[in-house]
């Protein structure tokens, strides 16, 4: 598996019908990158840097105005049509990404049903719940009865229910407490080893990206400014990346 993005361009939207603004800035300009099979890449950037747009482009939720995305050597559209359910996503807003009148079981089962793999549904759901470390007692509960961390786990279970080859995690941690963030990160780490997926973690938190990813891509105002292996984090050279790393606020016990 190889995701190759070449020279992606996405123009900004015009502000409104009567706006006198001639041309808005590009949301994504000339972004090229590769993600290898089984690799976990981290896309790090500030808010408004276009990282979520990039994820939506990979998912085919947004059209591109230039460039090309290839997966496994074929155009992304064709790959997605041939491999339904092989690309999953988990969003930041867990509450609005599940159906409010579905139980947890229905939420997780839905993508499996859509792919018409209806055998042993109960067993599949139970093993999925076990994989995301949730007790089986949540099966018949509704989304509003669960805590944020639990619901995010349900979303992850739904995402991996179709055995995806590519998993895109769009700011999965930002609306959770720090202690829950760590639990989710640990879960993703084990899933990464168990399931052999290609992962793309989109985040603004460098520490979280370093925790999970092998490779980091830094996005700034729509263009890819730097990419590095995890071990080379402190050898970056672009001013934006340096600024980002300098402004980390680490928590250390021995210093203070």
């Amino acid at each position, binding site marked *: 598996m190889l995701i190759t993005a070449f020279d992606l361009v996405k123009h900004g939207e015009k502000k409104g019908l009567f706006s006198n603004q001639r041309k808005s800035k590009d949301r994504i300009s000339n972004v090229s990158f590769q993600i290898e099979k089984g690799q976990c890449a981290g896309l790090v950037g500030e808010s408004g840097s276009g990282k979520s747009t990039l994820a939506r482009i990979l998912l085919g939720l947004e059209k591109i105005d230039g460039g090309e995305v290839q997966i496994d050597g074929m155009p992304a559209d064709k790959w997605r049509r041939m491999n339904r359910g092989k690309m999953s996503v988990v969003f930041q807003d867990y509450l609005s990404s599940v159906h409010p009148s579905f139980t947890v079981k229905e939420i997780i089962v839905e993508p499996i049903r859509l792919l018409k793999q209806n055998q042993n549904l109960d067993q599949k759901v139970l093993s999925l719940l076990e994989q995301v470390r949730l007790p089986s007692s949540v099966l018949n509960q509704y989304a509003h009865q669960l805590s944020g961390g639990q619901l995010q786990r349900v979303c992850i279970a739904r995402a991996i229910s179709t055995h995806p080859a590519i998993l895109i995690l769009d700011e999965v941690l930002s609306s959770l*407490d720090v202690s829950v963030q760590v*639990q989710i990160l640990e879960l993703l780490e084990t899933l990464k080893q168990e399931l052999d997926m290609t992962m793309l973690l989109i985040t603004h938190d460098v*520490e979280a990206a370093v925790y999970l990813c092998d490779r980091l891509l830094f996005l700034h105002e729509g263009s890819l400014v730097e990419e590095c292996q995890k071990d080379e984090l402190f050898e970056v050279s672009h001013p934006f990346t340096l600024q980002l790393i300098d402004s980390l606020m680490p928590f250390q016990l021995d210093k203070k």
Partner: protein
Amino acid sequence: MPFIDVKNLSVHDPHQQKNIVTNITFSLHQQRCLAVIGESGSGKSTVAKALIDLVAPSLEVEGTIIFDGKTLTNQEAYQWRGKRISFISQDAMNAFNPIETIGHQMIETFQQHLGLRGKEGKAHAMAGLTRVHLKNPYDLMKKYPYELSGGMLQRVMIGITMMLSPDVIIADEPTASLDAFNRREVIRQLHTLKEENGVTLIVITHDLGVVQAIADELMVMHQGVMLEHGSAKEVFTSPEHPQTKHLLETRLRLSAPTEALRQQKRVEALLC
């Protein structure tokens, strides 16, 4: 004598028949910074709001709050709010009036609290926006809140607070919607306010990195109860309650890979 003295502060919800916050007692000297940490739903925001009488009217607040030697009553809270005690709220989006420009709201605030009119108010607003490193303050003042991002509004709010030069700043998750660079900048600004202007700070947060950067004292809350209270150093080095240990330990685990790399490369972390 402590500047802020809170005794047995409880907030009760009569509709659901339960306490949101139970028996909070702490005191804080001038030019000190208290950080309140806890998971979401632990009642830390409610404590902050109860300190300046901003909780919803349906809730019952009990206990005494002594501020600069005087008991805080509704009337005094009304007088002091803004000028002497400033509050930086969590969701900047709802803190501004949607149908007035940013500049208008800033000038109005300065007129109300500092008695500045016309050009003086405008100059003050410009200075406030410059202090929080916002670009093009002149254009910014003509904009409406919906045109700015959450992080920018948060900085506008902090800018207003700085220019009011209050004695106490209560900041409810001041860095929640900010990215790493701005978070550091805001924390640095709060730190200088404390050191140079003698401001007393109460910071509500869940980010232990922030706590370590500015806090002198630390209060840990869980389900409306105060678990631990002491100097930040002490709580960090010898946490007593398992919940505190859990909070510290998970945060350490998040930092661990980055810190390992940092040590390997011998790069020093910048401290505030």
